[in-house]
């Protein structure tokens, strides 16, 4: 392969897609939770727990897939906790979300020290490798961008049509949306609002866990404290900016993380902007995008409101 502008574009795209993946999966998970009418700002904490669980799982099972499973279970448990507090006990969802973030931050750091000690050496673990799709990955430019990625990347982008179909073309999807828009109506139509919300919350959190696992065993190969570094919040922004539609969320994630790619690129080419300013780019993009969106949100009508039967 030659080193020309096309080659750079291919690499930039590949890197944007890779960087967007954890945001995309977490945001799709959050979408399911939101559609059930739950306001969940604890994405960051849920992902953090999963980053550590993935590293630990990979370390002890010797397989990155074992790590992924651990991350899914850990994040699912966080989802269950969130569901219990907000659905059963009807606690304020914003407060519980904040608590999940603090818990995720503290628990992941503490567990890391328990499991791996306070040493500076990094445990060597199995991580995700690129899985080129035979044939397709040889297409110039696009091949590198789309078909020479890690397995989770493929899964993330396949989830976009899958979740889209689920939400808008299946009975459970319709029921889920009804619960988020008007739980009272759903209840009168025989839908178990509590159960629907529990399932959506746990499954959605599991997806956030996949996003977290990809951070620590895909993009990077180790756990470090606070390594999610705001990506959970960017996922929240991606759902809103993507107007609660899977495809919209996909583009939102890619636009936000293009800032990250650009920052890396500028750094490589040695533009005289300090590194720290460049690193702000994705966050600045997020703020600007949300500000442009203004008041016109498409959030489910019952989001954030606890439901009490009868």
């Amino acid at each position, binding site marked *: 392969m030659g080193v020309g502008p096309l080659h750079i574009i291919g690499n930039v795209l590949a890197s944007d897609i890779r960087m967007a993946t954890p945001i995309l999966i977490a945001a799709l998970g959050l979408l399911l939770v939101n559609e059930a009418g739950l306001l969940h700002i604890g994405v960051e904490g849920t992902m953090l727990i999963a980053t550590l669980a993935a590293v630990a799982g990979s370390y002890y099972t010797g397989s990155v897939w074992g790590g992924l499973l651990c991350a899914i279970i850990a994040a699912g448990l966080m989802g269950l906790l969130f569901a219990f507090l907000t659905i059963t006990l009807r606690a304020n969802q914003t407060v519980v979300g904040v608590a999940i973030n603090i818990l995720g931050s503290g628990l992941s750091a503490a567990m890391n020290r328990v499991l791996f000690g306070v040493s500076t050496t990094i445990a060597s673990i199995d991580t995700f490798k690129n899985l080129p799709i035979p044939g397709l990955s040889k297409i110039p430019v696009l091949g590198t961008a789309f078909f020479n990625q890690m397995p989770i990347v493929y899964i993330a982008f396949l989830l976009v049509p899958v979740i889209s179909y689920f939400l808008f073309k*299946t009975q459970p999807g319709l029921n889920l949306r009804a619960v988020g828009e*008007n739980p009272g109506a759903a209840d009168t*139509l025989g839908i178990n609002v509590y159960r629907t919300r529990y399932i959506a919350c746990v499954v959605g959190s599991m997806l956030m866990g996949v996003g977290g696992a990809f951070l620590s065993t895909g993009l990077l190969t180790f756990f470090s404290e606070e390594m999610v570094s705001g990506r959970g919040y960017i996922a929240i922004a991606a759902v809103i900016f993507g107007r609660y539609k899977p495809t919209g969320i996909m583009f939102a994630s890619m636009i936000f993380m293009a800032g990250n790619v650009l920052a890396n690129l500028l750094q490589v080419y040695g533009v005289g902007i300090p590194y720290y300013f460049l690193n702000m780019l994705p966050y600045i993009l997020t703020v600007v995008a949300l500000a442009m969106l203004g008041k016109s949100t498409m959030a489910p009508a019952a989001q954030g409101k606890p439901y009490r039967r009868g």
Partner: protein
Amino acid sequence: METKQNENIILEMRHIYKQFPGVLANADICLNVRAGEVHALLGENGAGKSTLMNQLCGLIKPTSGDIVIEGKVVHFNSARDAMAIGIGMVHQHFMLVPTMTVTENCLIGATDAGYLKLNYKQAAKRISELAEKYNLEIDPEAKVGDLAVGQRQRVEIIKALYRGAKILILDEPTSVLTPQETGELFNMIRSLTEKGFTVLFISHKLNEIKEICDRVTVLRLGRTEGTYNVAECTVNDLARLMVGRDVSFSIERKEGTEGEAMVQVRNLTLARDAHTNLLTDISFDVHAGEVFGIAGVDGNGQNELVECLTGAKHATSGTAMYEGKDLGKESTRQIMSSGVSHIPADRHKAGLILGMHLTENLILQDYYTPKFGKGALLDNRAIDTYASELIERFAIKTPSRYEYAGSLSGGNQQKVIVARELSRNPKFLIAMHPTRGLDVGAIEYIHGQIMKQRDDGAAVLLVSTELEEVMKLSDRIGVLFEGKLMGIVNPSETTVEEIGLMMGGTRLEDIRK
């Protein structure tokens, strides 16, 4: 008049008890409904109607007692069970998702619509067929949020029919309709019963029960008063059964108290955005000693009009002159301190602070005046004395003046607001939905208090969606439709039909042409 056991009973509720923590909502309620009849369930707020119906449609379970459908005892674990057996409920507050289409709304929770592949087209077709068969015109592809209230109700009925309902429960179905829409609804009900459906009609509007129902079961304080043939009862009989005493429906009206124009509203306009208005060119006068009623279906600009007159919103153009001031431009504090009182539409959200004591709620309008304190300090003794005085004068039933406003009954909460506002001896009283959700006794009392203000020379602006209330109290009536005044009429010279047409958007001059 007690009806006998009769064959052809489709639904029976036997000795239903429902115990909530601290409240026995239903005590030994018996109900039997014949196939193909329109059976009324009559009772005041809190009589246990809703609780009983929620049990019938599977949302809650009875503490004891049996529900018998076509001779078989049934037990419902969820609304789905009740629907499966043919019970469909049209709730007072519609159970629809406004962002979805009519068809999607019918498909929510459906069990036969294809699990992983929704049969959307097939469902839309069936809805069209149902609509045609029962004269319920509706577009299956329309977004529910874009439909008018009457049409939404139709969607609810279709939704129930789509799920195979044979017994339709209509909970206060006319409370959101114009008289014409009510007429249409009654026609629908008649055509449904002709085709073999059974309708349970929940209401406290006696005239409607007389008009549409065959038999009536009266509930009072959670118990059954009895079941009667509607044809054998007068409206007064029904009222006595419902309330437990004689009720006076007329109101004493002193004539000739009307004075100068206290409030002059001229071309009042409030813009929503660059293209649409919430209020357009509203002009009317309210005279001293007059009740000026505003009728209209909820959401046609009543809120905005009152907000413009009380300083919550500032008019885009036009004026509302009161004592040389333009209410459309003043602040709420300036308006309220110049002899204007306001009974807000929503007593929980705007009328009271539920988490505060009665004493505090009673001085919300005047807490800053020297009467109740010096500087930043409140004079608690003066406040207590004042509160006790009002509680006695307005007969507010409360264990103590330190009770939280939120723990009183609806009627007593409304009395607290009325006490606070009327004790200020207003020259201009704005009363919005002053009796919404109250029982007959409390309504009587509050109507009396409003009329007393009028007789004492205050200008009263009464905004209500209860046409009966507006017709009864007002000296003149203006009708709002989509933010425009359709006309001003004198209640003695108009008819319900005429007002109904205006509520539906026809101008007075076009009606009387």
